[in-house]
Structures are given as C-alpha cells and as structure tokens.
C-alpha cells in the first residue's frame, strides 16, 4: 500500500528534516506515527499524501512508483487518500455540509449521491444538526469531526491523520479512534500521527516512532 525506501527530505537548501526513512504499510494495516513536535511527522505525512516530493529515495503508493508517474496521474492517486489535517483546513466560506462534500464534488460525483452520503456521514459524526453551520461557528471538536468526515467521505483506501485527537476531550478522542478502527475493519489502511504515546500504546496497534527526522524502534 505505502512503501518508502531510504527517503530523505529537505526544504530548499535547509538541513534534512527526514533521513533514510524506510517503511512498509500493508493494506488494511493500522499504525500510529509517534514522535515529539518537530520530529518530522507532518512532513512524512505530506510526502505520503503527495503534497511534497522527496529529495531522495523512493516512494511507492498503491503499487506505483510515484517518481515514474506523470503529474496528471497523481490526482486520481490522491483521491484514494483521505487526510485529516492538524489545523483541519476547513474552508471558512463554505458550510459544514459543503466542506464535507468537497472530495465527492472534486471527483465529479452526482449531486444526489453527494447529498445522500454527506447527510449520512454528518449524522454518523454527530453533526446532523450542523449541516449549514460555517466552521467559525463550530467548536474545535466539531470542526475536527467535520474534517474527519471530509477525509473519509470518499471512502479512501488510505487514511492519514495528523493529530486527529488533539483538540477533543478524552471521551471524544476515544470515540474518534473507535471510528477509525471501524474504518480499518472495513479495509481502510490507517496511519495516525500523534505525540500522545499513551494513546497509541492503549489501543495496541503498531507504532512508527520518529526522532529528529529518523525512524527508530518504538
């Protein structure tokens, strides 16, 4: 599903923020990506969801070496990946409904399907009464649930989440994690970045630990 071999990454002429990263996420696996702030978790996720290109090494997604792909071939690949951003990145001028609908509309789904799926998912994340709400009027936890709904609406094969439980209380964090586990049971591969080691340990899934840009044994 996701394979990295000796990947290195630097921004501009700065120092390498990731060094010699090699990992293999098999289909249907669930991994936590742990590490302190600044360890390189977000950069590693950005590489995997194709927001950055590595400065060295090989990245293979869904069995395809991305360095061999044309630029136009990357968009369909990105649609197979759901991303929950650390800062949510909800569009402030759109309603919660339209934010969640974005991936479906981008992929050209018919509007009837969009309405049905978004309404169902918003109900599932407990925001059925917030369809018309603008992100600015939602609490941090509600915004996070909208962001998660947007990430999973397209039924991605791979879900990446950057600190998905960072802005919610423990009960909501556990509920969200159970939601992720449910998706994992349905076949979605998950990689969740968190600085909360305890949470990762509690759920018992495999861990990838980053220290100063390098993967080390957890």
């Amino acid at each position, binding site marked *: 599903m996701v394979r990295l071999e000796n990947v290195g990454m630097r921004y501009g002429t700065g120092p390498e923020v990731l060094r010699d990263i090699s990992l293999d996420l098999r289909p249907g696996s669930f991994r936590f990506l742990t590490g302190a702030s600044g360890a390189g978790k977000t950069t590693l996720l950005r590489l995997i969801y194709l927001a950055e290109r590595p400065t060295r090494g090989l990245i293979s997604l869904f069995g395809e070496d991305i360095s061999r792909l044309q630029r136009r071939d990357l*968009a*369909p690949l*990105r*649609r197979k990946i759901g991303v929950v951003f650390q800062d949510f990145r909800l569009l402030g001028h*759109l309603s919660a409904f339209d934010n969640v609908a*974005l991936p479906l509309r*981008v992929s050209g789904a018919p509007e009837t399907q969009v309405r049905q799926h978004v309404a169902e998912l918003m109900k599932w994340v407990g925001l059925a009464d917030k369809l018309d709400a603008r992100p600015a009027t939602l609490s941090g936890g509600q915004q996070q649930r909208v962001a998660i709904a947007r990430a999973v609406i397209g039924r991605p094969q791979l879900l990446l989440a950057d600190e998905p439980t960072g802005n919610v209380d423990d009960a909501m964090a556990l509920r969200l994690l159970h939601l992720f586990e449910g998706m994992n049971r349905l076949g979605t591969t998950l990689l969740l970045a968190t600085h909360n080691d305890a949470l990762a340990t509690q759920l018992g899934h495999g861990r990838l630990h980053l220290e100063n840009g390098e993967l080390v044994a957890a």
Partner: protein
Amino acid sequence: MIGRRHDDIPLHRDGTARLLPWLIAPMVYLAALALAGMLALGGAMQDWDRGLAGTMTVELPPAQGARNVALAAALGVLRATPGITSATALDRAAEGKLLEPWLGTAITPDELQLPLLIDLHIGGGGTLDLAALKTRLAAAVPGAQLDDHRLWLNRIHALALSVEGTGLAILAMVGATSVLTVIFATRAGFAVHRDVIELLHAIGARDSYIAWQFESEALRLGFGGGLAGLILAAITLWGLGHAAAATAVLGEEAKLLPELHFALWQWGALALLPVAAALTAMATARLTVMRALARLP
C-alpha cells in the same frame, strides 16, 4: 446548504477580482472607439472612391473674352475621344453656387478670374489613353489641365492607411494591456487563495477543476466590464455622430467629417468586443492558473 459547483475558491470576495471590470471597461471603451473610427473611415473611403470613380475634371485657364472658343475647342477634343461618355462644362451659375458658401452672393463668378471647368464621365468599355488626351488638350487649349483625382485619392488612401494602422496599434495595445491586467489579477487571486487551492489539490482536484473556477470568474468579470465599456463607447459614438452631422454647414454633400452610420455587421463587430474581452480574460486566466498549478507537486 448546497454550495454551487466549482465555487470552492471564494474569488468573488477577492478585492483584486472586483477591480477587474473597472480595468476591462476602459480597455473595451478604447477598443470600441478605435474600431468604430476604423470602420467609419473605411466607409468614408468607399464613399469617396465611389464618388470619384469614373470622373475626371478638365481645368482651362481663365479665359480673357474667349471663353466660348476655348470651351468649344476642349469639348471638341473630349467628345471625340473614345472612352469618354460625357463632357459637360460648368456654367457660370453652377460655378457661382460652388463659391457661394465662401463668397456669398455679393460677388459673381464673372467678376473673378476663374478657370473653366469641364466635368467628364468615363466608361463605355473603351480604354482611355490619358497621356495622349493630355497632349491633345494642351494642343487645343494651351494651359489646359486634366485632373483624374488620382493624386487626391492616393493621398487620402495613404492617410486612411496610416489611420487604420494607428487603430490596429491601439487595438493591439489595448488587448495586450487587458491580458497583462488579467494575468496580474489572476496571480493575485492565486496568491490570496493559495491555501484553498492547495487543499483542493491535496484532495485530488485536477488542475482543470481549479483553473475553471478562475476561468469562469474572469469570463463573468470580463464580460461585465466589457459591456460597460461598450455602452460608454456607444454613448460617445452617438455624441460624435451628432457632432459630425453638425459640421454639414456646407450642405449635405459637403460635410467636414464622415458620418458615423454603421451597417448591421459593423454594429455586430462592435457588439462582439465584450465577448472577445471576456473570452480573452478567460483564456488568460486559464493559462496563468495552469502555469501556477504546474509548480505544485
């Protein structure tokens, strides 16, 4: 609840985009005036060509008491020349009418040393040898001159060509300025909404999906601005048309400025300017955005 499709980037709230119609409008205004000027000049040229085609004027030196002799000699030569269908001398009354706007009625042509004029019409299929005719005329009436209007028409054609060239240069400059304006506005819009664009890119939006939002906005704003510019130009042309009509102080046949009467196709060409402006803005926005998107991973 349901947002409009392709309305993910809030371009309509963007200050730089709001400015675009105000920049496109004067461009289309200038383009419309330049185009109208070229069309009007072209029409006037055709009128002049039509009026002078097939006619020539023979000018005899002022006669000292031998007017009829000189006229008869010249008319004899002219009427015997194949290719000339008619040769009519202007009588004193006609000369007086020509001079009346300048001299009034107080002075008659008889009191002035005026050349004698013969109006010629050419046709009949024969080929007229102008050089031979000039020689025969000069022999019959010393000092006689044949004016085939060619010099006048050549100069008018040269003037018309330079005016048309200037008009085309104005159109090209207006077009180039409009394109640059749209490029800067689109780049500004791209920079302002970069976070939204990166998000759309990250969730798998194709470049054409993102570019279309800029294109449709540029199309809308370009057409709005273009329409405003065209309406202003139409008002200006209407005013200029009235001003041109008011120059008919010498009668309908002697207006100083050509009339601004356009044929249907010419109005159509002017009406297409906002469409052309909108399509140019749209294409420019697309190319600008596609180039910017190509720099994203």
